[in-house]
């Protein structure tokens, strides 16, 4: 039934234009609708969803396109966030403008991407995962301990009172026409759209094909004249720079950073977004990022839900929340092993693999 309506709709002459207009309208009004329906806190969760979409799309270049398993991606997020925090807060008394802070964080994270990529060029799969995991931890431990002898990062206390994002003298944290969370929503939305545009263009280019070629067969890729070293480093630095941009936005949005926000669990969650959504497929990755940001928050309502249904709280909602979340992840991977929204080719591969194993 739904399929019939959809296919009938797709035959309409202007269906693409209509869809884009509808999508644009939804995206523009989303904070108002969300605020009205669910409350201000959910607009904030929306902002975080957008941040995670940026991170997931960045990691997708490394893991999804180039097939390099990276478990330390949050390090680049941290680099972006801390460079923004250090150069734009009373901590060292430096207050660079936002239009400088964001590019600095982006470029610096890209540089760290190359730093991580260079020693790991010959590693693949599990081995690469372990090294990247170590790299992520190194960055976090550095941030934790770089408060002595010279206090650069503020140590475990982190950095406070970070300058909010500010474009052309208008600070996003000062409620103008809209509340601050709305401002950030629109700001993040612009960056997300930019990143989607960039990754989409990259995917269907000479560079994108080279990434996939390396993922599929590195030796054959070399034999086709692909300089795998450069192309891999490019993937690492492109992915990392998206992470760095996300980090800068995060610091300006939160006004506070500390090493706690950049632990291994974050890297794992970002990886989950990609795997759960559909590796290498941009819409899938976006969907995965939204689901994995919204679901844990939505599960906070398990407490009130129990109260309403049973009249009392039976299981501690904090325990139940992560339990249900974990079960949801397992269920998705069992029922849709290629991800919630895989690319058509990848889905086909998985279906064939299942058929083969049934033979």
């Amino acid at each position, binding site marked *: 039934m739904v399929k019939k309506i959809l296919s009938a709709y797709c035959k309409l002459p202007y269906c693409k234009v209509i869809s884009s207009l509808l999508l644009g309208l939804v995206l523009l009004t989303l904070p108002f609708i969300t605020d009205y329906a669910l409350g201000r806190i959910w607009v904030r969760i929306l902002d975080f969803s957008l941040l995670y979409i940026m991170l997931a799309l960045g990691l997708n270049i490394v893991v999804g396109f180039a097939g390099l398993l990276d478990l330390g991606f949050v390090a680049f997020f941290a680099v972006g966030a801390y460079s923004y925090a250090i150069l734009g807060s009373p901590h060292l008394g430096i207050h660079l403008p936002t239009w400088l802070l964001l590019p600095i964080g982006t470029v610096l994270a890209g540089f760290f991407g190359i730093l991580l990529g260079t020693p790991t060029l010959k590693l693949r799969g599990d081995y690469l995962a372990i090294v990247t995991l170590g790299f992520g931890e190194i960055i976090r431990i550095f941030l934790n301990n770089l408060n002595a002898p010279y206090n650069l990062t503020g140590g475990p206390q982190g950095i406070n009172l970070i300058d909010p994002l500010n474009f052309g003298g208008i600070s996003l944290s000062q409620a103008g026409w809209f509340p601050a969370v709305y401002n950030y929503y629109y700001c993040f939305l612009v960056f997300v759209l930019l990143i989607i*545009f*960039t990754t989409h*263009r*990259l995917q269907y*280019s*000479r*560079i*994108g*094909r*080279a990434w*996939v*070629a390396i993922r*599929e*067969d590195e*030796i*054959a*890729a*070399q*034999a*086709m*004249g*692909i*300089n*795998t070293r450069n192309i891999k480093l*490019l993937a690492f630095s*492109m992915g990392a720079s998206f992470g760095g941009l996300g980090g800068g936005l995060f610091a300006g949005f939160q006004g506070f950073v500390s090493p706690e926000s950049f632990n291994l669990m974050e890297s794992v969650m970002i990886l989950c977004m990609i795997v759960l959504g559909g590796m290498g497929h941009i819409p899938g990755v976006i969907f995965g990022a939204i689901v994995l940001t919204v679901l844990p928050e939505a599960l906070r309502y398990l407490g009130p839900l129990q109260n309403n249904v049973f009249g009392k709280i039976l299981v501690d909602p904090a325990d139940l929340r992560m339990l249900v979340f974990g079960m949801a992840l397992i269920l998705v991977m069992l029922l849709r092993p290629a991800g919630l929204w895989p690319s058509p*080719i*990848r889905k*086909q*591969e998985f279906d064939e693999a299942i058929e083969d194993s049934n033979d």
Partner: protein
Amino acid sequence: MTEKLLEINGISKHFGGISALTDVSLQIQHGEIYALIGPNGAGKTSLFNVITGIYTPDSGSILLNGKAMTGKKPHEMAKAGVARTFQNIRLFHSMTALENVMVGRHCRTSAGVVGAVFQHPKAKTEEMAIKNRARELLEYVGIARHANTVARNLSYGDQRRLEIARALATEPLLLALDEPAAGMNHTETNSLEELFRKIRADGVTLLLIEHDVKLVMGLCDRITVLNFGKKIAEGTPDFVKNHPEVIEAYLGVSV
């Protein structure tokens, strides 16, 4: 044309205590079809890997058109004009046939990140040219109708042909084919032979490893026979066919 295209001198390669290649030398002329034969484990594929830069030889030198190429990386060899196919097909399985060939254009094109993202006129023209050339090559090897089929779903023979198209996309001077007719029936082998003649006629020199004796004898200008990593004979098909050491290597009886 009778100039030397590829010249390898005294190549040796060891893996631990095993010597895969010992002091192998050969010369391939422009426009030739040259074959490398020998029993299994004779070192044919190892020699291929040395020529295409996957292995670095322990000693010896490689010259392509008179230029020293010893120790170059695979992508540098591809850029210099040596393309290859693999014994166990190594396609980019989740890409379509067309995309596979488009990857082959990588080393002859230059668009980078900026070109990809902003799609300025030059990058757009280049991308169009890549696609057109890839289509032509699929047509050339005879699998144009499968352009949008995912590589893994192609039939075995078509996968072999796709690998050849992908290698041709790098505009090679020398096309090295590792057992291109393996597992093919008589008809398929015949049409493959036609394809090789066509490729040669278009100015590409061919080097092939092949077990199909009939194909090798009918097609090739010169043959080198390897056994236990050493060259035991080199010459025209007729010369090699009657060479005592070759007969011994294949049949295991001394004459």
